[in-house]
C-alpha cells in the first residue's frame, strides 16, 4: 500500500523537520514494514514550466516545429517539438538537460541532453504527459503535449512546485498489516504516528442528517452485513474532481475518474472504509442487502458477467442484484455521464464472505481487500462524515433528500484486565503508568487504572479480532514504548541431565554413514509421486493416500514408498552421470494402521523410510549388487544398532526375477534390496543404466544405547591365507559353500572368505569358477606347512564330495 506523507499530515501534525528515515524506521519497528520511501519531487528534477513565445517551422522537417520558449532563464530557448497542439502563450512542461523522461511513456527513463534535431539545436524537450508519468492526471492524445495553461504559474517554476508534488510516498508491505484492518487508510497510520511521537490526532465531526426522509434500506442477512447507511444525494453531476484530490488519488496508485467516484475512493484511501455511489435513477424502489439466488446473473462494472452462488452477498433493488457487496458495483447502476443524483453507500460487510466471493470470481478489488481484513462497523461514521463534507465542498448545491443508517448488529468492544505484576514480569521492567496511559489513550483505548492493574476497553477498530487478550495489550505497550528500549536479559537454565536421543542420533549416523563412508549423495524429493512412476513400480494404487488439490493432475498420490521418486531422480541424472549412488530419508504414508491420540486425532500410518539407489552400467550389475549389499550389510556395525540379515521371502513387485533380497531384523522383514527389473526401469524412462534399489523402514531400527564393539586380541601366531580355485555347478550358492566348510568346527580354520567368481570362455557351460580363501592359524603355535596343507586338503575333500567341485591341479 502506498501512503502520501502530506495526506497523513492532514490528521497528525508531524514536525516539519521530521527525519524521514527515522519515521520509516520507527514505523517498521513498531507497526508495519516500510519497504521504501520516495520523494515524488525527485522524479521531476530539472523539469520546469515553460511558456511558448513563438512557434516557427522547422527548416528540415515538416512535422517538427521550433518553439521559442521562456523557461524563466536569462534567454528564450529554442526547443524542437513535434506536438500537434502547440500554440503561442501555451504553458508547457519542459524537460531541461539532465532531466529523466520516458520516451513516449515507454521503456526505462532516459536522460535529456542538449541535442540537435534534424540540424536544429534544441534545449531539452517539451513533454507529453506520458513522458513525465502524469498521463493519469493529464490524459491526452498521442501527439499532444501536456498543457498547463489552466494553471496560474509563472514560467520557470519547477513542475513539482507547480503541481504541488513535493510529497513523500511511503510503500508499506501489505503482508505486514493483514491483521490490522485499521491501518488500510491514511488515518490509521496517522493514529500510530500520533501514539509513537505523542502528537495530537485530528478527530472527525460526525455527520448529522438534516433530512427526515427515510431511505428504504433492508438487510436480509445481518451477519453478513451488520450495518448499511444509504443516503440519496441530489444536485450532483459528473465533472472532474479538483486537481488536488486527483493528485492525491494518483500519488497512492489509483486513477482519478470523476468527482463522484473520486470522492468514494478518496474516502476509502483516507479512512480505510470503502464506499460506493449508485446512480439513484437506476435503483428501483429500495436497497436490499441479501444473499444472491443460486444462478442469479450480475454484470459487474468491469463488464464481467457473473452467475452468482447463494453464498454471495449482493446489493439489490426491487428488480435484482445491482452490486456484489463489498467487492464491486454492477454495470447497470454505475455512475454514468448523465448522473445527477446518487445513492451513497457506506456499509459494513463481514470479512470472510467478502473474501470468498472475491476469490470465487477472481475479482479482488481495493474494497474487497479491505473488507476481508475485518473492518469495524463504526468506521462508517468517519467515512460518512468525510464523504458528506467533500460532496458539499464540490457541489455547494447538493441536498441529501433521504437517509437511513441501519445498524442492527452492534460491534462489542473487547474489554481486558491487565495486572501490573504480570505486565512487569513479561516485559522485564516497569513502564511508568503515565506513559502507558498516554500511548494506549492515543491509540483509542479507554484505560481505567486500579491499584493493581488496569481495565481496558478496546477501540472498535481494534475489536474485530485483532486485540482481545492481555498479551495483546502487552504488545501494544511494548511496541509503542519501543522494542529496542528493553535491555536484553539472559536465559537461565536448570541442569537436568544431558540430551540423550538415540533414535534422533541414529538417523543422523545413518545419513552420515551413507554420505561420508559410502560416498552416496543425499537427495530430496517431493512427497507426491508422478502417476507413471507409481504404475511402473507398484501393482496397484490400493491404500495410497491422495491429495484433494494436487500440484498437477498426474501427481495426486502421496508417497507410500520412496522408490518412485528415486527412480525419477535416476532417470533425470543418467543423462549426466555414467554411475552414481543416491539416498533419501523421508516419511512415507498409507491409508491404514490409523493411530488415535488422546485428543481424538486419528492419523494414517506414517513411517520414516530410507531409499537408496546404486546406479551404473548394466554390465556391472554384480558389482552394483555387491556394493548395495555391502553398504546395507555393514550399516548396523558402523551406526551402532541391531544387525540385519538377508533372506529371500517375498520378491518386491518392481524387482528383477533373480537379483533380490529381503532385509530382515529379528525375524521381521524391514526392507528390500534388489535390482530394478528391466520392465520397471523402462516404464520409469531409465533407458541406459541399471539400478540396484534399497528401501528400508527406519522406524524399525533398534539403536544400541552405547557402542558395543568388543576388543579382540591381535593374534599372537601368524594367520595364513590359503586360496582355492575350483569349478562347480553354476547354480551353486556361496552360502552353501560357506555353510559346508564351517558347519563342523575346525579349530585351525579361522575363516572362509569369498574372493571371486568367474563365468566365461574357459569355463564349461553350466559351470562357474570360484575362488575362496581359507584363513588358517592356531592360537598356540606357528603352524607348519604340513599342518596348513592338512586343513586345506580337508576343505578340498569336502568340496569334492558334496559339491562335485573340480580342482585344477597346479
Amino acid at each position, binding site marked *: 500500500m502506498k501512503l502520501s506523507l502530506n495526506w497523513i499530515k492532514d490528521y497528525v501534525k508531524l514536525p516539519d523537520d521530521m527525519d524521514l528515515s527515522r519515521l520509516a524506521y520507527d514505523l517498521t*519497528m*513498531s507497526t508495519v514494514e516500510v519497504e521504501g520511501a520516495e520523494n515524488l519531487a525527485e522524479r521531476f528534477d530539472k523539469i520546469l514550466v515553460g511558456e511558448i513565445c513563438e512557434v516557427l517551422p522547422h527548416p528540415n522537417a515538416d512535422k517538427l516545429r521550433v518553439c521559442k520558449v521562456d523557461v524563466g532563464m536569462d534567454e528564450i530557448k529554442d526547443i524542437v517539438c513535434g506536438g500537434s497542439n502547440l500554440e503561442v502563450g501555451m504553458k508547457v512542461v519542459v524537460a531541461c538537460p539532465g532531466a529523466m523522461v520516458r520516451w513516449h511513456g515507454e521503456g526505462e527513463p532516459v536522460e535529456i541532453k542538449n541535442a540537435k534535431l534534424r540540424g536544429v539545436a534544441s534545449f531539452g524537450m517539451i513533454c507529453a504527459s506520458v513522458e513525465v508519468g502524469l498521463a493519469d492526471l493529464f490524459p491526452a492524445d498521442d501527439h499532444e503535449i501536456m498543457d498547463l495553461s489552466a494553471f496560474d504559474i509563472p514560467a520557470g517554476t519547477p513542475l513539482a512546485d507547480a503541481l504541488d508534488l513535493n510529497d513523500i510516498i511511503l510503500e508499506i508491505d501489505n503482508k*505486514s*498489516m493483514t491483521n490490522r484492518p485499521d491501518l488500510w487508510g491514511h488515518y490509521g497510520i496517522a493514529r500510530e504516528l500520533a501514539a509513537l511521537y505523542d502528537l495530537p490526532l485530528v478527530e472527525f465531526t460526525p455527520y448529522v442528517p438534516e433530512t427526515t426522509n427515510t431511505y428504504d434500506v433492508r438487510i436480509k442477512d445481518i451477519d453478513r452485513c451488520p450495518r448499511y447507511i444509504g443516503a440519496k444525494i441530489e444536485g450532483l453531476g459528473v465533472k472532474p474532481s479538483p486537481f488536488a484530490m486527483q493528485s492525491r488519488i494518483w500519488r497512492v496508485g489509483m486513477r482519478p475518474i470523476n468527482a463522484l467516484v473520486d470522492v468514494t475512493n478518496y474516502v476509502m484511501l483516507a479512512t480505510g472504509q470503502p464506499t460506493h455511489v449508485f446512480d439513484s435513477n437506476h435503483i428501483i424502489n429500495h436497497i436490499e442487502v441479501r444473499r444472491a439466488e443460486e444462478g442469479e446473473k450480475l454484470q459487474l462494472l468491469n463488464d464481467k458477467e457473473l452467475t452468482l452462488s447463494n453464498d454471495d452477498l449482493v446489493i439489490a433493488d426491487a428488480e435484482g442484484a445491482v452490486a456484489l457487496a463489498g467487492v464491486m458495483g454492477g454495470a447497470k447502476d454505475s455512475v454514468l455521464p448523465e448522473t445527477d443524483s446518487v445513492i451513497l453507500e457506506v456499509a459494513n460487510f463481514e470479512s470472510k464472505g467478502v473474501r470468498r466471493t472475491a*476469490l470465487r470470481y477472481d475479482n479482488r478489488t481495493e474494497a474487497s481487500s479491505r473488507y476481508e481484513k475485518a473492518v469495524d462497523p463504526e468506521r462508517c461514521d468517519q467515512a460518512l462524515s468525510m464523504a458528506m463534507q467533500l460532496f458539499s465542498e464540490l457541489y455547494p448545491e447538493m441536498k441529501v433528500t433521504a437517509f437511513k443508517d441501519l445498524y442492527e448488529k452492534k460491534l462489542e468492544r473487547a474489554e481486558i484486565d491487565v495486572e501490573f505484576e504480570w505486565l512487569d*514480569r513479561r516485559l*522485564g521492567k516497569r513502564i511508568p503508568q503515565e506513559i502507558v496511559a498516554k500511548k494506549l489513550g492515543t491509540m483509542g483505548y479507554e484505560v481505567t487504572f486500579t491499584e493493581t492493574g488496569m481495565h481496558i476497553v478496546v477501540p472498535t477498530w481494534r475489536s474485530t*479480532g485483532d486485540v482481545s*487478550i492481555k*498479551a*495483546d495489550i*502487552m*504488545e501494544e505497550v*511494548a511496541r509503542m514504548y519501543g*522494542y*529496542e528500549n528493553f*535491555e536484553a*536479559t*539472559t*536465559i537461565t537454565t536448570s*541442569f537436568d541431565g544431558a*540430551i540423550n*536421543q538415540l533414535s534422533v542420533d541414529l538417523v543422523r549416523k545413518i*545419513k*552420515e554413514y551413507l*554420505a561420508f563412508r*559410502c*560416498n552416496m*549423495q*543425499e*537427495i*530430496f*524429493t*517431493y*512427497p507426491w509421486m508422478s502417476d507413471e512412476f507409481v504404475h511402473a513400480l507398484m501393482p496397484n494404487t490400493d491404500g495410497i*493416500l*491422495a*491429495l*484433494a*488439490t*494436487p*500440484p498437477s493432475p498426474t501427481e*495426486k498420490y*502421496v508417497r507410500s514408498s520412496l522408490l518412485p*521418486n528415486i527412480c525419477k*531422480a535416476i532417470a*533425470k*541424472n543418467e543423462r*549426466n552421470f555414467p554411475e552414481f*549412488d*543416491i539416498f533419501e530419508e523421508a516419511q512415507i*504414508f498409507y491409508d491404514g494402521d490409523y493411530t488415535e491420540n*488422546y*485428543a*481424538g*486425532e*486419528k*492419523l*494414517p500410518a*506414517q513411517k520414516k523410510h530410507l531409499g537408496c539407489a546404486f546406479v551404473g552400467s548394466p554390465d556391472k550389475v554384480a558389482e552394483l549388487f555387491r556394493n548395495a549389499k555391502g553398504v546395507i550389510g555393514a550399516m548396523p556395525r558402523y551406526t551402532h544398532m541391531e544387525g540385519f540379515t538377508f533372506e529371500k521371502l517375498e520378491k518386491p513387485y518392481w524387482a528383477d526375477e533373480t537379483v533380490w533380497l529381503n532385509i530382515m531384523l529379528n525375524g521381521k522383514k524391514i526392507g528390500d534390496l534388489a535390482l530394478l527389473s528391466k520392465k520397471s526401469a523402462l516404464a520409469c524412462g531409465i533407458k541406459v543404466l541399471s539400478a540396484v534399489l534399497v528401501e528400508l523402514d527406519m522406524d524399525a531400527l533398534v539403536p544400541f544405547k552405547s557402542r558395543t564393539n568388543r576388543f579382540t586380541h591381535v593374534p599372537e601366531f601368524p594367520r595364513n591365507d590359503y586360496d582355492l580355485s575350483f569349478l562347480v555347478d553354476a547354480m551353486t550358492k556361496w552360502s552353501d559353500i560357506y555353510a559346508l566348510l564351517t558347519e563342523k568346527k575346525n579349530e585351525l580354520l579361522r575363516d572362509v572368505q569369498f574372493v571371486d567368481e568367474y563365468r566365461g570362455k574357459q569355463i564349461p557351460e553350466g559351470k562357474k569358477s570360484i575362488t575362496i580363501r581359507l584363513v588358517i592359524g592356531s592360537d598356540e603355535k606357528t603352524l607348519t606347512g604340513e599342518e596348513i596343507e592338512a586343513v586345506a586338503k580337508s576343505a578340498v575333500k569336502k568340496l569334492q564330495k558334496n559339491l562335485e567341485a573340480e580342482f585344477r591341479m597346479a
Partner: protein
Amino acid sequence: MKEKLEALLREGTARIEAAKSEAELQEIKGSLLGKQGSITELLKEIPKLDVALRPEMGKAVNNVKNLLSEQIEGRREALKLKASEIPQDFDCTVPGFEPKIGGLHPITQMCYDLNDAFRSMGFEVFSGPEITSEYYAFDNLNFPPNHPARESMDTYWLEGHDTGAANDKLCLRPHLTGDSVRYMQTHKPPYRFVYPGRVYRNETTDARHERAFFQYEALIVDKDFTYTAGKVMIKSILSKVFGQDVPVRMRAGFFPFVEPGFEIDMGCLVCGGKGCSVCKHVGWIEIMPGGTPHPNVLRAAGLDPDEYTGFYVNIGLDRLVMMRYGVDDVRLFHSTDLRFLKQFH
C-alpha cells in the same frame, strides 16, 4: 707391488663411487675381493716376497682390502637410500585423483549445524508427522475458524479427508508449529526443543516460492521468560552458525500463534549493514518470525498461560541455505540434480 696396490685402490674407489646399483656393486666386490679378485691375487703373492718386506706389505694389502670393503658397504647403504625406480620424466604437475565422495543435502547440513548449536544450549530435537489433522495444523494454534490459510488454495488437504470437523480433516502439514503442541502434550515443562522439518503449501512456484520447503522451529517455555531473552537466544544461534557476531533486531509482526509476534531481522553479512543489493539496501534481512506463544497455544498444550510463557522462532531453512551459498532458485533443492547437489561438501 706398492704401485700396483695404490693403483688398485684408486681404480677400486673410482669404480665403487661410480656404481649405479647394488648388482653392479656386487660385481665390483667380486672382482676386487672375491676368490679370484685382484686384492686376493695380491695377497697370494705376499709369500713370494722377501721375508723382511712381508709383514709391511701384508699389512698394506690388508689395509686396502678393508678400505675397499668399507667403501663398498658405504656405497651399498647410499644406493639403498637413494634407490628410485621412477624415471625422471615423471610429471608431478598432473592433477590428483578426485576422491569419490558423497554428501549430505545442503539443507541437511544447515539443519545439523543448527541442531549442534541448539543442543549445545540444551535443546532436544523432535519431529512430528507430516500428515496432520486440521486440529493440530490450525485449531490448536489459534487460527480462527475461517482463516484463509485453511483453504485449499493454501493447504494440501487429502482426498476423502478434506471435509468435516477438525479431527476428520487431514492435510500435509502447512507449518511445523503444530508439532510443538504435540511435544508439549507429551512432555513436562519447562521445554526447550527444536523441531525441524519439511512443510507444504499449495502455491505457484517460482525462484523464491516452493510447494515443499524446510522450516526449523525452536521453542522455549518456562516461567518468567521475557521476549528480550528470545533475542539473546537468536543472536547466540546465528552467531554460532555464521561464525561471527550477527546483529539481530526484532520488530512488530503478526502470526496467529504468537502474541506478541515479531519479524526478526539479521544484519546483512554481505555488506555489514551498510546496504547492498542482497538486503535491498536496508542493511537488514528478514530471517524469521518469532514471538511469545499465544495463550491459546499454551492452553492447548495443557499449560496455564499466566504461569508459563516462552519464545518461538521459525527459521526458513531454505532461505538460510540460499544465503549461505548464494543459491538463487529455491526449486533447486528438490531438483535431485546431482550437478547441483554435489557442490556442497
